[in-house]
């Protein structure tokens, strides 16, 4: 089975893409989770679906392709990230309201575009739940570029993002450009979602950004440790999920998410064992 992934180009593309999103989605997810913005990833992924449906509609209606569904999804996702910020500023006292507005708007637009096209075939299904055979060489190139951008930006802004995530007021008083950093952060989320949809699917992409992080923060003492663990869990979920999806002929989005949930459950058990061990050591120290 592993040989297949190395032998066939389309499977190689899928494997490389999987390895890249297994790295960048949990990496960015660490900041998303600690900033309590997990639902923003969900809202953006639903808008990405609208963009993809729009792209598919154009493909179906027009003889010559104007914009591929992938780029349309990317464009919608970036625009929605800007719109969420606008709405959060407009509703300062109810900032979370931006999320259902954008999420339902995305689903609404998707329904309209799908209806206008009189439904879609397997293409839409693969965008919804991911596919092991959907990644073209062109997709892979774009995903490599997105991954480089994400890694570079997080590399440069790591310290600032950490301060902003931990204590927003301290960040503002320290003279950090909080608004600009947050804006860049939102754009990164939009890019990572667009990069992940081919494999995980729009409906499950936020899971890859949050579940490995949820498992990591149960076990980590510090933020860097949490990032490393989240990436290890993300990569494990993607690799096991991709191979099992291919073997059982199931969309990989489902298997990747199930594997990541299994890792999360395992993290609960490991955490309990670690705590019990710590208590035992403390008790023994007390006795002696």
């Amino acid at each position, binding site marked *: 089975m592993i040989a297949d992934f190395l032998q066939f180009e389309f499977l190689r593309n899928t494997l490389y893409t999987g390895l890249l999103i297994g790295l960048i989605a949990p990496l960015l997810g660490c900041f998303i989770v*600690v900033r*309590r913005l997990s639902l923003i990833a969900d809202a953006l992924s639903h808008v990405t679906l609208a963009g993809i449906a729009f792209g598919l509609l154009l493909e179906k209606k027009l003889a010559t392709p104007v914009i591929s569904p992938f780029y349309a999804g990317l464009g919608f996702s970036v625009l929605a990230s800007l719109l969420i910020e606008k709405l959060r500023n407009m509703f300062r006292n109810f900032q979370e309201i931006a999320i259902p507005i954008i999420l339902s708007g995305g689903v609404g637009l998707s329904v309209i575009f799908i209806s206008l096209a009189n439904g879609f075939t397997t293409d839409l299904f693969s965008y919804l739940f991911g596919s092991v055979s959907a990644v073209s060489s062109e997709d892979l190139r774009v995903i490599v570029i997105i991954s480089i951008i994400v890694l570079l930006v997080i590399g*440069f*802004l790591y*310290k*600032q993002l*950490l*301060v902003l*995530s*931990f*204590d927003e*007021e*301290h960040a*503002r*008083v*320290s*003279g*950090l450009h909080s608004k600009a950093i947050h804006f860049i952060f939102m754009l990164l989320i939009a890019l990572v979602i667009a990069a992940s949809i081919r494999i995980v699917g729009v409906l499950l992409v936020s899971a890859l950004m949050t579940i490995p992080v949820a498992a*990591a*923060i149960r076990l*980590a*003492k*510090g*933020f*860097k*440790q*949490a990032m490393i663990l989240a990436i290890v869990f993300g990569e494990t979920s993607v690799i096991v999920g991709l191979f099992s999806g291919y073997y059982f002929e199931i969309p990989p989005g489902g298997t990747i998410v199930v594997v990541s949930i299994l890792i999360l459950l395992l993290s609960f058990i490991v955490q309990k064992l670690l705590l019990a061990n710590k208590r035992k050591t403390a008790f023994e120290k007390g006795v002696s």
Partner: protein
Amino acid sequence: MTSILQIDTINFSYEQKAALREVSLQVKKGDFLGLIGPNGGGKTTLIKLALGMLQPNNGSIRLFGHTVSSFKDWDKVSFVSQKANAFNKGFPATVFEVVAMGLTPKIGYFRRFSAKHRTAVKQAVAQVDMSDYLHENISSLSGGQQQRVFIARALVSQPELIILDEPTVGIDHANVKGFYELLQRLNEEKGLTLVMITHDLAGIAQYASKLVYLDQQIKYEGSPEQFSLPETDLHVLRGIHA
């Protein structure tokens, strides 16, 4: 003595509601100023104005001789906010990581965290007697220990002025005393200028070099030993400590 913070006849209102009226205040180098007053008396508002987070309706505020709007040397000023110990308790951050955050503005965007910075973090943690907890998760510490970590974060950039907004809230009595002693040591030995908002009149009066009572206007400014208020304000003050 050099003036660190100079506030001249400022007024401030939230929409139509006046929060500060004709407030003037000077903080000199080496002062340990205790800012007390009733809830809604404008203490936090005054600090936010001093830090440039709000703009006064009129009057002027100068930090280290510069107007706040043009002030650039923010590494000279540290702030420990009321919300500092209300951080997300599930946040996976070690004491080292939290204290290192205090260096972020100084390091900037393109410089890396170096061995020199690592040493500065360890020194700041040692100053607040928390070296044994350097690699512990901040959430696993007590309220008093967490507040010491936030002081270390404020100290790490070697500021000249630290502003603290009710830092003793939620800390037990024994730890509050230790906390005041730590501030006094930093003030006397390191020459740090401190401005501390508090409701703890009895505590701050023992350690501060200067006391200001603010209830929209400054009702008292002077030494803690000579602190006195008109009868009407004393009623308000007794209400705080009832």
